[in-house]
């Protein structure tokens, strides 16, 4: 991870935006909503490769804690990342009873591909990104803890606070935590 990313992440503030249906007048993005414990996350659908069942995950020796292991998806090996460990460690997220089985959300940025464990995937929605005025309108949230650098911002959706993940920074952060330098081009990009 580059120092500017770290510096920019430290200046980020929490922002609450609404996930609204697509409107022709307002530019919106398609997001996939997923839940991990009691926390909700959103990922741009263009970064999602596929959603698969969480099969057998092989633990990799000497791998960091946020790397759950690797799994095989139709013949290719994908690194499984634990968002729980990346957010603050095990036990941070309280478990709920999901209707479906655990999922693996495979995201890609460039040539890098990781899989995130999600308990529930709500679906795909459209969301209008907040403007700079919206950011100034949420100054009251200064008391919240700082967001991780791989979270662009947070917005409200059905009484939930959804964190929009930046896939590129997520991959970079995971690599940095794993002391992998091969993602330097992503950092530079």
């Amino acid at each position, binding site marked *: 991870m580059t120092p500017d990313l770290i510096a920019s992440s430290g200046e980020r503030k929490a922002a609450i935006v609404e996930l609204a249906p697509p409107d022709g007048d307002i530019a919106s993005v398609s997001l996939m909503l997923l839940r991990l414990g009691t926390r909700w996350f959103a990922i741009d*659908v263009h970064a999602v490769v596929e959603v698969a*069942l969480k099969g057998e995950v092989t633990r990799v020796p000497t791998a960091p804690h946020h790397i759950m292991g690797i799994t095989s998806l139709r013949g290719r090996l994908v690194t499984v990342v634990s968002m729980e460990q990346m957010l603050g460690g095990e036990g941070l997220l309280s478990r709920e009873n999901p*209707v479906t089985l655990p999922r693996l959300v495979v995201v890609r940025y460039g040539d890098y591909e990781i899989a995130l464990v999600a308990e529930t995937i709500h679906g795909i929605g459209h969301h209008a990104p907040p403007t700079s005025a919206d950011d100034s309108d949420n100054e009251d949230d200064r008391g919240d803890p700082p967001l991780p650098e791989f979270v662009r911002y947070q917005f409200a959706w059905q009484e939930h606070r959804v964190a929009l993940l930046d896939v590129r920074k997520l991959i970079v952060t995971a690599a940095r935590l794993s002391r992998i330098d091969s993602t330097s081009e992503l950092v530079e990009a």
Partner: protein
Amino acid sequence: MRTLGLRTKLVLTYTGIFLAFTLVFAWYLVARQGSIASQALETRAVGLSGILAKLIAPAVDLDLDKSQAENSLAAIKGHKDLIYIVVLKSDGSVYLRHSEGRSPMGGELLETSSLTRVEQRGEILHVLEPIRSNGKEIGTLAAGFSRQSINQEIQTSTRTVVVFSAIILCMGFLVSWVFSGTIARPMLEMATQLTGLSQDLAGLARSQETASTQQVSAIDETRGTMEVMLASAQQIAESSSAVLGNAERTVNGNRDVAHRIKELNNHAERVAEILAVIMQVADRTDLLALNAALEGTKAGEAGRGFTLVAAEMRRLAESVMESVAGIRRLMNDMRSASQSAVQAGQEGIALSEETSRSARDIALVTQQQRKATEQVGRSMDDMAATVSEAMASTRQTASTAQDLVSAALRLDRLVSSSSSLGTGRQGGHRANVGEDFQAPTSLAE
């Protein structure tokens, strides 16, 4: 007829012995004295006649004057026993006759005799003494002596003997009275004691018979109670058998219910497996629809319809999964209910088995109680037989006591004497004996 007492008999016996001894002694003494006196008189008469024959022999031989001859007899004149003296010559003529004035009873014995002859006739002792002179028999002296003095002496002796005999008899009576008292009193006391013991024995026999009667009554009551207990035990055994049968049927029913619930659980497990398959299919359908929606969204405007179809498929899959989840909840509830039913059934089985064991225990205890009751009944029978034997023995004892009382009464009557020992005590004692005498009789009846 009144029976004489033992003491009276003893007194009479001893007195009779004394009387007989005294009579024998008196008779012997009197007879002996009479004999001695007669012998002495005879000796004296013979001697005197011999002396007279020698004194008068010269006068007869010389045929002197009677006065001279009577002078020869002067020495014996006035003899108290002499009655007569007659001197006969050899030819039988009376030479001299001398009489003391007492006419001889039965006459004179005037016979010549060559030998001295003594003859008793009536109260006179006649003595014939031959008179010899120079070896020649010249006459016979006939003398008569009276036995009156002897008789008077005998009478005097007899009176003396009678007096002494009376004294001895009185002394013997007193001695026998005292002696019989020393014998009869302990015997009377023993008879009294024996009578008392017999009375006590009769009382004990009566008490024992009364107790035996009460024991027989108690045994009869106990036997009745045992029969009631036996009937109750039989009824309890029948009831416990019915309870045992019901409990066993309940156990079988509960086991059947448990078996059916188990089958139901198995079916539920199969349904759960099928639901798992459905859930898995729905999950995969949801996953496929999600990926389809993802691809449709990525396709942009061209994939909008595809995205909508995929969204509907997702909704269907989610609806199926929610339904399956609801079915699972219902299945879990049903499983919990069935488990509760199984647990309740197991508890029911346990209770029924406990009831069965209790019923078996009750049946066993009742059977033991019935055996014990029967044993008690047999023991009651044995006890009744024993008591009957005891009653028979008691009756025998009462009869023996009756005989003993009778014997004691007879002994008491035999020993007791109304004249010597306390009649009041004996009378009361006899009255008691009479009363006790009736009691064993009633017992013997």
